[in-house]
């Protein structure tokens, strides 16, 4: 409990992103409008991604068919698990789906795993390092809907392009306008399709965001209990290990399902 302003202030502080924007967009010193960047989300997710994918690329570059090193073995295990899911679900042939699924699972997992670091640990350390004791900084990027929407919209666009590429423009358009009720009810078919397509990225991103945001909130509330947080933080932490893995897995799995739906005829 570092910030003044009581319980509400503490919670508010923990849920505020480090935002930057042009001075002209500021209202009372707070960034509003679209052209705002959450530096904390961008930095933490980017650094985590660079570190983890850099490590994976390093192990992969030294990968041998012989006895694998410990690191290679671990990366292979993770990658093999994801690849198995892709094989089971996605029946087409695509050089993109497995790397996409690996990226999602690994990246979302490490970002979620930031939640396991005690809520005040990194923010207080950063405040001490910068000397700014009011510096807001969220260390769990997946609690920022911008990140989850950024990912889900990218997934949506990829699935759209994949559908176009696999089925061809004519077949794709036929599916959009003539399925499931036939070409006579084209507007209704189109409306159904749009709702279906839009619902996917929204549910995909809100699921991850909601779970992580709620989990983070519970950590913040537990941290408010003073000494009593000790017996509570541990079980929630242990439980959260399950949640972060599950959420990463679910995001990956649904992406594979959407890709396979895009690549196969309805």
């Amino acid at each position, binding site marked *: 409990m570092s910030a003044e302003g009581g319980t509400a202030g503490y919670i508010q502080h923990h849920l505020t992103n480090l935002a930057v924007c042009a001075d002209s967009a500021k209202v009372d010193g707070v960034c509003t409008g679209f052209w705002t960047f959450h530096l904390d989300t961008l930095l933490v997710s980017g650094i985590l991604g660079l570190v983890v994918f850099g490590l994976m690329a390093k192990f992969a570059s030294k990968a041998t068919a012989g006895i694998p090193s410990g690191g290679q073995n671990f990366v292979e295990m993770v*990658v093999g698990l994801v690849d198995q899911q892709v094989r089971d679900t996605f029946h087409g042939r695509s050089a993109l789906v*497995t790397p996409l699924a690996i990226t999602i699972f690994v990246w979302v997992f490490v970002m979620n795993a930031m939640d396991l670091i005690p809520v005040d640990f990194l923010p207080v350390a950063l405040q001490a390092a910068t000397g700014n004791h009011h510096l807001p900084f969220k260390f769990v990027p997946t609690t920022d809907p*911008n990140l989850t929407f950024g990912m889900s919209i990218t997934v949506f666009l990829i699935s759209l392009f994949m559908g176009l590429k696999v089925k061809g423009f004519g077949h794709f358009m036929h599916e959009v306008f003539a399925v499931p009720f036939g070409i006579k009810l084209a507007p209704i078919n189109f409306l159904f399709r749009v709702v279906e397509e839009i619902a996917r990225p929204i549910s995909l991103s809100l699921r991850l965001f909601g779970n992580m945001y709620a989990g983070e909130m519970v950590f913040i509330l537990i941290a408010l209990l003073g000494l009593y947080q000790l017996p509570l933080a541990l079980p929630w932490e242990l439980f959260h290990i399950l949640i972060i893995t599950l959420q990463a897995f679910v995001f990956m799995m649904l992406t594979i399902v959407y890709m396979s739906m895009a690549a196969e005829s309805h």
Partner: protein
Amino acid sequence: MNINATLIGQAIWFALFIWITMKYVWPPLQKAMADRQAQIAEGLAAAERGKHEQELAAKRSADALREAKEKSADFVAQAEKRAQQIVEEAKGTAKIEADKVVAGAKAEIEQEVERAKQQLRERVAELAVAGAEKILRKEINASAHADMLAALKQDL
């Protein structure tokens, strides 16, 4: 919760990481894993082959062993037969030899008997002559009765 340009930045990060995974992580790992799978399959096949060969070799060795046993049994039977033959032959030879010895001994004995008889005859004749001489000293002339004595000697 406010949606802003961070979304675009995140999409760019995401695309970058997908690209890294697609180019530098997945292909080498996939290759390594596929190669290893092939190696393992090869090793398993080789093991299977080795096992098969070992089975064949065991069968061959069993065959050879059986053959050798049969041969040795043959040899033993032959040797026994031969030994029997030798024994038979030896028996025959020994019998012939023994018969010969017996016949020789018999002949010798007969000769001896004959000789003894001869001697006895001569002795008896002498004795008879001596007895007769003693009995008939006075009236019988040995030379006068020599013919009769010779006839007597012959009768004995």
